[in-house]
């Protein structure tokens, strides 16, 4: 049979089946089960109305249970059994084996790196572009361009960026943009400015930002401000943790300033960007940032427009400059939305698979958890360890998911 005809039949059967189900089940409820006549007419109508929502919910609940609920339980079972031993229960052996593999810890480390970098940069760029495009005449055009990557699949984006990172031998024309730019540097003052001073300045700025975060996190602990409504017991450990993370970041960036300034560069030689350990993870992250910035921008732009104009005018009268208005008036008012955007991107990042699969397949130390799971499950055919890593991903995603839904609901009220 012609595939197009097959598709058409599928659509007709699917849509017709849906309509038939909803129509017939409601007819059954109203005419047979609780008919709106006879002695108990009022009671029957009430009961029919109590059941009706479940008729409509049933297909979704059924599909969710079948395709989401059951696989979770089955994956959990698989992760605790060994297929080669006829599905014998082996306890946490699969987890132990996974924990002993360096590739798993590499994936965990990379995932954490993705988790910090991608949501932060995507949200920051999204916020920045939302604020800036709102203020210019051709902002809507700019917005469309920034949003466009959202329409591209992750694999498509990966292919585009593979071309950007492409390498040709030194005597040929470079078709990769990054190498073409790289070959423009040959160790002169321009190279010093762009490859040493500028990165060092960026790292120092980051360190200063972290120092500010450190200060913000610990200030209320040192200088007891008046007891406010909303201060709760978990704020203290959270602040200590944030302060610790910030201090660690300062230490890391201070170290890397020296390495940036003293690094040896291979000028004139085309680089195979995706094989440079540590840095190649960032080259992969760029792809996801490129995609997610558009998402963050659209949501945050709507939130920025929802801020009452008068609070901004009041801030102008109070003498705030544009930066103070942005950071002290606008950003706090859309903090809820920022958190939702951040956590939504975090969820995408934790599940990131396509980009790594299409660009490096986890080689050269770019492994991430989802690709590790795929490797184990479908390449090594190790169902136990594969399922165990799937469970690990789920456990990592779950709290963020709950928090995301909680925040999104709070935003809606």
């Amino acid at each position, binding site marked *: 049979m012609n595939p197009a005809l097959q598709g058409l039949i599928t659509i007709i059967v699917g849509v017709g089946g849906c309509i038939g189900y909803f129509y017939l089940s409601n007819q059954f409820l109203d005419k047979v089960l609780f008919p709106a006549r006879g002695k108990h007419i009022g009671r029957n109508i009430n009961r029919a109305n109590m059941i009706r929502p479940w008729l409509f919910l049933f297909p979704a609940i059924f599909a969710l249970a079948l395709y989401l609920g059951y696989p979770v339980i089955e994956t959990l079972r698989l992760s605790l059994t060994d297929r080669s031993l006829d599905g014998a229960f082996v306890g946490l052996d699969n987890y132990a084996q996974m924990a002993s593999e360096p590739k798993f810890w590499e994936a965990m480390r990379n995932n954490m790196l993705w988790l910090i970098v991608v949501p932060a940069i995507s949200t920051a760029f999204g916020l920045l572009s939302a604020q800036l495009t709102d203020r210019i005449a051709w902002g809507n055009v700019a917005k469309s361009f920034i949003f466009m990557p959202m329409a591209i699949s992750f694999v498509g984006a990966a292919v585009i960026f593979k071309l950007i990172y492409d390498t040709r031998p030194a005597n040929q024309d470079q078709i990769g943009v990054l190498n073409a730019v790289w070959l423009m540097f040959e160790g002169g003052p321009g190279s010093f400015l762009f490859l040493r001073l500028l990165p060092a300045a960026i790292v120092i700025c980051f360190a200063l930002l972290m120092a500010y975060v450190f200060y913000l996190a610990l200030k209320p602990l040192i200088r007891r401000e*008046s007891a406010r*409504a909303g201060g709760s017991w978990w704020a203290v450990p959270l602040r200590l943790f944030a302060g610790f993370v910030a201090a660690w970041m300062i230490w890391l960036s201070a170290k890397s300033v020296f390495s940036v300034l003293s690094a040896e560069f291979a000028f004139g030689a085309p680089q195979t960007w995706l094989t440079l350990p540590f840095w190649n993870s960032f080259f992969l992250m760029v792809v996801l940032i490129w995609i997610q910035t558009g998402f963050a921008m659209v949501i945050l732009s709507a939130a920025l427009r929802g801020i009452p104009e*008068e*609070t901004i*005018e009041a801030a*102008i*009268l109070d*003498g705030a400059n544009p930066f103070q208005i942005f950071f002290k008036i606008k950003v706090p008012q859309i903090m809820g939305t920022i958190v939702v955007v951040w956590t939504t991107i975090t969820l995408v990042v934790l599940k990131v698979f396509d980009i790594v699969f299409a660009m490096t397949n986890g080689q050269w130390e770019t492994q991430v958890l989802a690709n590790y799971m795929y490797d184990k499950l479908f390449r090594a055919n190790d169902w136990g360890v594969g399922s165990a890593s799937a469970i690990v991903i789920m456990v990592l995603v779950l709290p963020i998911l709950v928090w995301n839904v909680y925040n999104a609901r709070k935003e809606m009220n």
Partner: protein
Amino acid sequence: MSSLSLKDVCKSYGSVEVLRDIDLEINQGELIVFVGPSGCGKSTLLRMIAGLETITGGTLEIDHERMNDVPPAQRGIAMVFQTYALYPHMTVRDNMAFGMKIAKKSRSEIDAAIANAARILQLEPYLDRLPKALSGGQRQRVAIGRAIVRNPKVFLFDEPLSNLDAALRVATRIEIAQLKESMPESTMVYVTHDQVEAMTLASRIVVLHGGNIEQVGAPLDLYERPANTFVAQFIGSPAMNLLDAKVTATGETTSVQMADGGRATVPIASRGDDAGSAVRLGVRPEDLTITDSDEFLVSADVDIVEALGETTVLYFMSKNGEAALIAKLPGIHKIAKGTNIRLTAAPEKLHLFDDKGISLLYR
């Protein structure tokens, strides 16, 4: 001493002129109310004083300093918005402190200013609350507090009561009047479309209409001696009745004759060449009384009677169904619909406007 002066101030958006040649001197300690119908430019004028709208032409001076291009924060003004415009993520205390923190004032200075404002406005128990935990009236008090803390030369109020319910509006209006009394040195500019607010609060009222100032004066001056038919009908409720008439005698007093036979001699001087010209006789509904004599202003059939107890309002409809004349009589009058009655008013309560609508008093 003039603390705020507007000289030939204009505002236009592209080719649309919204304010034309506004000239106004506001003295220190005055409470000036801008009043007018929607779209008359009163809020725009206030926002130009605040610096939120640019001034297209003319000069704005505060304390004899040209302020046209001075940033809003340095003009020495503070503004209270219609929607309060409180920062929702800050406590009441932080809302009031924000401006001073931006200005890098010392902590003790900020605390003293906030304590003072909170005492004046009785906000002490709410200082650590967020705006969402306050009622509408309390929020408006915080907005006023934020203005007080800035210690401005001029307070600007942009319809501060229109978001409050009726009972709260009266209470807050009285609070603002008391606030003004407690700060006699401060100048206030207040925008409203509500003439009751204008009459009760203002030391002088500025009536705006279609981008022009129609009249500036003390509330009762505007009521007793309106400069033109617009002010005459805008101030007072129900609006002043305007009757078409012809001048029959001129001089120290002016005699007029209405089309339906009513006559009046008004103690307003007129020129000799006014004789025979068409004028409009203005009389407020509350100044009309019923009479039996032949010296009457109007003789007509009552169309609608509204007995309110304290007053009785009579409506006389014109042929096209609009209220041609309204009379507001004190007390209870048992008058049947359709009764022909004669109305008159004391001569000194009458107003005369020429064919352009300008009062003969102000020609």
